[in-house]
């Protein structure tokens, strides 16, 4: 800990932030997706005639909600593998 350069500090902070971001960024979309699927399945059970339309709408909305967590994953990947801060402050 004594000979900690700023570069190492940035890497440590980035790793912690990436871990936190992936936890929060997957937890919330999964929760909301669960609510959406719950409502859709309730509707399917109540009206089996409308099941195909409900299934299509549910799949599309689930994929759209999934996009939020995919964005978080992309940002985490950028932070871990192509961190812009290090190249910006220390020139690679």
């Amino acid at each position, binding site marked *: 800990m004594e000979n900690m350069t700023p570069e190492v500090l940035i890497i440590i902070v980035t790793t912690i932030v990436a871990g936190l971001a992936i936890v929060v960024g997957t937890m919330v979309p999964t929760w909301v997706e669960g609510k959406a699927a719950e409502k859709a399945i309730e509707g399917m059970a109540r009206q089996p005639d409308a099941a195909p*339309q409900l299934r*299509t709408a549910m*799949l*599309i909305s689930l*994929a*759209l909600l*999934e*996009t939020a967590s*995919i*964005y978080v*994953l*992309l940002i985490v*990947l950028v932070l871990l*593998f192509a961190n812009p801060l290090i190249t910006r402050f220390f020139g690679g």
Partner: protein
Amino acid sequence: MDVIQHKIVFTLFGILPIRDTVLYTWITMGIIIAVVLILKLLKPNLLEYILEAVISILDDAMDVDNLHPYIPLLGSLMIFTLFANLISIVPGMKSPTADINTTIGLALIIVFSVHVYGMIKKGVWSYLKEFASPVFMLPVELIGQFSRTLSLSMRLFGNILSGDLIVAIVFSIVPYFLPIALTAITMVSGVLQAFVLTTLAALFISSAVEINEEDQRIKAENAEKRRLRKLSKMSEKGNN
């Protein structure tokens, strides 16, 4: 990581560098052509059935009178995306859609073709006028177009890349049996993403070509009023 980096495989004619994504795209195209030719020779009924399935998916998503002009674009988009997503289950291959350049290209094709279809259907001026129907909405609409491109490309890229990455990570830890389950999840996600991309493109196109009935009615009423005014003027002239 081999999944993320894209290397230049070989150079064409000494000047054109070819990256591995392009190579895998060509392989995907070759596989699609080969599958279609083989099915056409051996099982024409199956090919017809697949085409009917694609058309019925598009018919569910779109709310237009005539589906014919949109089938070539959307159908080929769906089939190409499906094969490109699923090709990474072959060992040694990478999905072309796990590269951001491919997905941005697909998203740009979709967004520009939406406008072209809208202009063909409604006429250039009346289509462009809709973007600024209240004038202050113009920046919002332009930002909407940009973010639509970005979200279409990022969704496909992120889903396919994350699937491939998770399979690669698990494979480096547990090489036996466990990657099979994750590969199955990746396949489901790939099929779903191809379906979602096509459905969203169909929704965008059908919202661009749909004719606003209220506008149409107001325009017809105005034309009627103008005609009546002209008639009354003419009759006044005749009386004088």
